């Protein structure tokens, strides 16, 4: 299809979605605060120290955790290291291209990373082998397999599920194996704005016509630990406050349902 006719179809689709969304209706019949079905399969990859396969509607993301000994950062000699990476591989969507990470995959990885880091989910101080010299480095790799919208939440749920099932492979290096020390369980909730309405867990169709996006990560105390506004639209202050309140509620529900916490 030429770009011109793409534009026409896009315009029609947007008009239609904006029309139905003004009444809070969604194309797949969900309520504005309803997620698509979430299915998480932990320990999907046995070679990984922890992993989870996440299906969020038709979006599918595989998250793997690998842990290796390495050097701490000079400014945090007594802490392990967390690094998060995301790959939008070409298999997942006709719009994804092979190659080095682009701004979309970098933003995805950094937003997921922020939710884990700022909630202090992993007790990094318990990941020291020799203070100042050797610590455990936790690599969280997000592999997007099938893209049907809302990669941020799918990836974040996957990362949390994988980390909750991660074993630090001490025995491989002449030490003891132990479960990754986890203190908190952050949950992220992403909203998009279509017309003047906010919807959680956007499908690809909804993402395509949305003007702005807001992701809010909350912890089990109902505190906010990370936020990211995206896309070139805007939110009113009221919309932000509203989204924050809902994210606390939804986060609580998802934490209980998915992670039993």
């Amino acid at each position, binding site marked *: 299809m030429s*770009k*011109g006719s793409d*534009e026409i179809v896009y315009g029609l689709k947007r008009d239609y979605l904006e029309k139905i969304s003004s009444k809070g209706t969604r194309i797949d019949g969900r309520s504005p605060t309803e997620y698509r079905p979430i299915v998480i399969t932990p320990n999907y990859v046995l070679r990984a120290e922890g992993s989870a396969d996440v299906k969020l509607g038709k979006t599918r993301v595989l998250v793997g955790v690998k842990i290796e000994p390495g050097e701490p950062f000079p*400014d*945090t000699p007594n802490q392990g290291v967390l690094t998060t990476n995301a790959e939008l591989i070409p298999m997942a969507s006709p719009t994804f291209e092979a190659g080095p*990470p682009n*701004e979309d995959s*970098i*933003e995805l*990885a*950094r937003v997921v990373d*922020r939710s884990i*880091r*700022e*909630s202090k989910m992993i007790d990094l101080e318990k990941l020291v082998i020799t203070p100042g010299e050797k610590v455990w480095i936790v690599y969280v790799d997000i592999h997007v397999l099938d893209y049907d919208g809302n990669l941020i939440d799918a990836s974040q749920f996957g990362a949390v599920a994988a980390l909750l099932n991660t074993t630090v492979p001490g025995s491989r290096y002449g030490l003891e194996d132990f479960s990754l020390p986890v203190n908190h369980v952050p949950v992220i909730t992403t909203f998009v704005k279509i017309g003047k309405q906010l919807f959680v867990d956007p499908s690809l169709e909804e993402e395509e016509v949305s003007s702005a996006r*807001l992701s809010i990560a909350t*912890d089990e105390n*109902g*505190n*906010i*630990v*990370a*936020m*990211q*506004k*995206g*896309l*070139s*639209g*805007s*939110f*009113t*202050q009221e919309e*932000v*406050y509203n989204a*924050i*309140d809902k994210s*606390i509620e939804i986060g609580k529900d998802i934490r209980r349902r998915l992670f039993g916490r």
Partner: protein
Amino acid sequence: MGMQSDIKLIDENGLRIDGRKPDELRPIKIEVGVLNRADGSAYIEWGGNKILAAVYGPREAFPKHTQNPSRAIVNARYNMAAFSVDERKRPGPDRRAIEISKVISEALEASIFVEQFPRTSIDVYIEVLQADAGTRIAGLTAASVALADAGIPMKDLVVGCAAGKIDGKIVLDLNKEEDNYGEADLPLAIIPRTQEIVLMQMDGNMTREEVRQAIEMAKKAALFISNLQKEALRAKYEKGEIQKAEENLNAEVNKGE
């Protein structure tokens, strides 16, 4: 938010390490039209930050496949000079810079009438020469002034400020130490005329009420900074008018001779 420390960020009088009150901004100075080749430019000093912004365009978007037949694309590039921070920053975009460039591009695009310039790109270059926390917002604030200097039609000048939490208190416009040792940071940018939020990020740990307080505080400050942007533009315009008048006068005098 980072390192653990015993540093006290607020003293017994309720003042911060640089002597500011909780809701007090660092000094801000904006200049317009500081570069020769760029279509528009601006310079901002904000606390210890020194940042240049330049705008090129609207110009034909390149490579061609990036062109959008119905509107301009906005490409901001946020870059830190190697010498802008204590420990030399390796030149070139790192992951942080790429993310910041993305959110700044999106925030500016929210205000620009992009549909007026199909197939073009509006390129915004932000160079951090000296960094002291809050660079993304300071850069964005300078960038929208540079856009105005380039004559690009916008809803309004995008402007921002950060608020955060240090020693359990919500404060405005964190400096470097507060950013390093504080508990939360929330950069925010708005379109003043409509008060829409076009950039918002947050990391750290805040309650719902604290987030509200931070947003409110940052918004209020942004509205204040918005006046500084407009004053800077006015200053350049007035200077230009005076110069023009002088030139005309000289020409008249010369004609008379």
